[in-house]
């Protein structure tokens, strides 16, 4: 047991305790948490910084506004409903279309039909705080549903694949692509059964995937090879995630982005407590990279310079 711990330590694998005590508590000041925990605020800050985000159709803050839902989405055929303070992808509803016959029935990304009343109940739950991190009242966001880039069409089962970049003190340290599966119900969270694939920071090429902590070569639903895919707009993605540091003020940050077929990379959300599974997806510990960033850290570097440094310093090992 101790020998495994020592090996993991040598491999630079970061554990939860160390992440919480040494990075999150030290580098992420509490007062900045609302910037990333409240997705409405995140969106505002990102827009102010000139970053691209999915368009916001409407926010439902109070129980009485729930009935406005139909008006908000009247012009939309596809949209996403999510809690402003949700975590881990809980409470997100992806609506991809409407029933041809009945306009008040919606089709979810999983193919399931849901009535307007059911969606309103879901929004009530969100507003009531069921998915909120702190358990108190929350807001429901209704926003643009990303038409994702065809790059990952082969390796996704419904839902929207996204790109997670861990940014340490403004320097991108590690990245992965999260691919929804049938098991994850179209959601891009690894603990819900999505496939994670590490990304070579130097090139933006995907590495082999990981499913439930196990290495996989191909997608469990589509059978397509996960590795060797070139992520489009990679430079832009790295630089945008590096700028997430200035926007959020958090030194240990997870930036989630999606690539829209028409609009290019968009910032979905940011995370003050990004998970550690990214290490498994990259088959590499993140602690060594963090140490390297501390060595090359330059407070005056621009986001573009920091992104370039990450490309230079962190090519994939294999």
């Amino acid at each position, binding site marked *: 047991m101790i020998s495994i711990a020592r090996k993991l330590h040598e491999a630079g694998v970061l554990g939860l305790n160390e992440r919480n005590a040494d990075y999150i508590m030290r580098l992420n000041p509490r007062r900045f948490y609302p910037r990333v925990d409240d997705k409405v605020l995140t969106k505002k800050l990102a827009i102010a910084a000139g970053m691209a985000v999915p368009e916001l159709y409407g926010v439902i803050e109070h129980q009485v506004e729930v009935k406005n839902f139909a008006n908000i989405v009247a012009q939309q055929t596809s949209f996403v409903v999510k809690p402003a303070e949700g975590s881990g992808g809980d*409470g997100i509803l992806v609506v991809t279309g409407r029933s041809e016959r009945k306009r008040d029935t919606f089709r979810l990304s999983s193919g399931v039909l849901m009535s307007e009343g059911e969606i309103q109940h879901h929004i009530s*739950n969100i507003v009531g705080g069921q998915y909120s991190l702190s358990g108190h009242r929350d807001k429901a966001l209704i926003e643009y549903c990303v038409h994702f880039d065809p790059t990952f069409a082969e390796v996704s089962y419904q839902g929207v694949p996204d790109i997670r970049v861990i940014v340490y003190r403004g320097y991108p340290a590690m990245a992965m692509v999260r691919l929804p599966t049938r098991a994850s119900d179209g959601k891009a969270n690894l603990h819900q059964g999505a496939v994670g694939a590490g990304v070579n920071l130097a090139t933006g090429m995907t590495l082999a995937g990981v499913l439930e902590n196990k290495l996989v070569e191909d997608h469990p639903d589509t059978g397509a090879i996960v590795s060797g895919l070139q992520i489009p707009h990679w430079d832009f993605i790295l630089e945008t995630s590096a700028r997430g540091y200035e926007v959020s003020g958090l030194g240990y940050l997870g930036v989630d982005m999606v690539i829209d077929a028409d609009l290019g990379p968009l910032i979905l959300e940011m995370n003050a407590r990004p998970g550690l599974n990214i290490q498994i997806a990259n088959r590499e510990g993140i602690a060594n990279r963090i140490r390297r960033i501390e060595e090359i850290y330059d407070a005056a570097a621009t986001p573009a310079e920091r992104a370039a440094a990450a490309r230079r310093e962190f090519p994939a090992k294999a």
Partner: protein
Amino acid sequence: MEQRYVFVLAALLTAIGMAVFFYKWQVLGFPVTENQETPVWTVEAAVSFDSGPGSIRAQLRIPTLTPGFRMLNENSVSRGYGYGTPFGDDGRIAEWTTRRADGRQTVYYRVTVYEDKKVDESDTTPPFPPMPVIREPMNTAVQVLVEYARERSADTASLTSEVLRRLNDPSPDANVELILSDVDNAADFVAAVSEILASARIPSRVVHGFPLSERQRGANLVSWLEVHDGDRWRYFNPVTGEESLPKQFLVWWRGNAPLINVEGGSNVQVAFAIQENHLDAVAIAETQSAHRGGSAVDFSLYSLPIRTQSVYSVLLMIPIGAFIMVIMRNMIGVDAFGTFMPVLIALAFRETKLFWGVILFTLLVTLGLTIRFLLDRLRLLLVPRLSAVLIVVVMLMLFISMTSHRMGLEMGLSVALFPMVIIAMTIERMSVVWEERGAADAIRAGVGSLFVAIAAYVFMGMKWLEHLIFTFPELLLIVLAVVLLAGRYTGYRLTELRRFRELVKDK
């Protein structure tokens, strides 16, 4: 930086906790194990006399300094008498006074003592005794004896032994016979030895007392010799000359003065009775620290009302449960619902006992979860839904109690002791996880919670630990220190070794 503060703080807390603990344990004698009993002896002196016509003043010598024993309490039974314990020339005196009394009178003095090896002589070093004035030819005989003993000895102790050996010689020489001509009892003998030693400028005194036995009526006083060697008092058997003290010897009084002195009374008799009892060690420690005027007893939980005590004996185990939580969560990495839910469940287990506790908990959560899923279809708002689940949980508890009572299973009744709000929240949380992450995750976390609750129950139920924490609440400072240290533990959790094992497999 934080690291250093945490270490300093933890060290400080541990030091304070340990210091108070050791003081209470070693000095005040609080027992570290439960039901520790200490033998105590109650010695009763019954003084009886025929009263004269006038006022009466009865003086009984009572224990002052008792090496090897500590006094627990003392009292007097004497109807119609004024009572006090003033200091006399050779120690304390129990004094009874009355203006008039009729017929035969009996007054009692009672003292309870227990063994405490730490009680040493608290006497100061006595001055060299003055040369006694002894008439001739006795003086010459004493001088010869002392010279003889001095030649054959190296120090005070051996000189004393030598004198005693000469005096106890079965075929005494003329000098010894002369010295002992006035001696007719053991106390006089020891007094004579004391005078001989005084002429050799050695401080000594007569000690009167008795070896404590289990139960004795009419215990006889034994006279012993106490000699100061310039450093400490030493005890000598006046008959054999050996340096020793009888086993469990309680010193009653010292010096040549008589045990009892009654003015205005006649036909005086003193009878001693000894009774051994066993007392809870805690009670003794309590009394003792109260005697010292120490504040330790003021903060002792034993000074609280009994009902409050029983509440605290449970409450004080909660930190232990929280500590187990820390270990399970941050060191092992067990997935569980709610930070302290398992600790509260463990508290309920204390009443229901483990087997029934697990069964009832599982039953309650399963039934509650089923009904929660049914409620889900009604699309209730969050707070009303939580309240509905709470009401259902209460009704389920009632149902389980009634059913098991009908079936003759009395253990089912204890289901009422489960913290229903916590259970309702657990059910709600579990159903959300169930929906969001799937049944596997929900059940894993549910079983994890139960596992942590069982672990917490096992530790919180340890009788010796409960006694230890209750008697020495300052030990919680040490628990706090360990929890603080755990708060800065940045190593891997046990489950992470499994989770990340892919990362080191091929290396």
